[in-house]
């Protein structure tokens, strides 16, 4: 059985190597993948949306539907964990979720959490001008909650972020994203066409603000879902 698996892997490796010889050269600026649409995105990012970060413009404005679908995928993964694990019975909190009682980790964690959260807010709001955006910022805030759950204990960290808030916050993120698209639809444009938002600004600044709202929605969605998945895995689904 193991020999058969290794044989299949070897055959797959030979096929991939044979196909790899036909790939474009490494670092070639004239490769076909870099030709047609990506030039338009690079040239149009500042003109259309007043945003220097081309990747953020691309995922939130030019290809906004894909990101909406992805936020829904992440939220439904959180729902799947909830459906698989949650039970109405009560259980003990495992060792990982008990307070560690160690003075050094306690104080360092309590000092680091606000700093990381501030940096995460900076990452979300500066996604236009530097690498960053909603995914990174939301994941960073989720890591502060994970840190608190593991070092300060499950009970005490409920004051920072209660477990019951995880899934509704994820849903709120998806709702903000879809809501922005719906508002654009109400005011005459296509869905997720930010130039029809009723803010009274010139067209490229409207798209700038639309990208910001959408990134905030994505940050909420990612944060709520990651904390919800972690809480389900930590408690094993049973209520504390």
């Amino acid at each position: 059985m193991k020999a058969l698996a290794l044989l299949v892997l070897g055959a797959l490796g030979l096929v991939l190597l044979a196909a790899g010889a036909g790939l474009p050269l490494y670092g070639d600026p004239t490769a076909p993948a870099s030709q047609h649409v990506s030039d338009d995105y690079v040239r149009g990012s500042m003109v259309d949306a007043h945003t220097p970060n081309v990747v953020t413009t691309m995922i939130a404005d030019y290809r906004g539907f894909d990101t909406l679908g992805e936020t829904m995928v992440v939220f439904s993964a959180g729902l799947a964990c909830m459906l698989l694990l949650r039970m109405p019975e009560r259980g003990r909190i495992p060792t990982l979720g008990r307070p560690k009682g160690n003075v050094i980790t306690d104080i360092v964690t309590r000092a680091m959490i606000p700093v990381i959260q501030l940096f995460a807010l900076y990452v979300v709001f500066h996604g236009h001008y530097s690498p960053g955006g909603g995914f990174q910022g939301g994941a960073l805030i989720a890591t502060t909650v994970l840190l608190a759950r593991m070092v300060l204990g499950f009970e005490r960290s409920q004051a920072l972020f209660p477990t019951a808030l995880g899934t509704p916050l994820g849903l709120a993120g998806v709702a903000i994203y879809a809501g922005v698209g719906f508002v654009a639809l109400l005011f005459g444009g296509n869905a997720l066409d930010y130039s029809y938002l009723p803010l009274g600004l010139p067209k490229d600044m409207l798209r700038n603000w639309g990208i910001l709202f959408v990134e905030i929605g994505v940050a909420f969605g990612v944060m709520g879902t990651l904390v919800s998945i972690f809480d389900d895995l930590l408690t094993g689904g049973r209520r504390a």
Partner: protein
Amino acid sequence: MIALLFVVAIVAALVALQMTDLLAAAALLSVFSFVVALLYGALGAVDVGFNEAVLGAGVTGVLLVVALFHTRRRSVD
């Protein structure tokens, strides 16, 4: 530079799959994710590298450790 990072990533992946102590293997998988995040940064993809460092080396590592404390910590192969 990029070749060195590739070699470290391949070694980390191979060793993570061979260890029988799953806690050490989860730590090595975090190392793999971190080296791959450095690789993304070296190839000019700073957004993707940031995301991989936070999510791969941080959240996935923690989720793996939490799950393996609910199941077995040692594996047979």
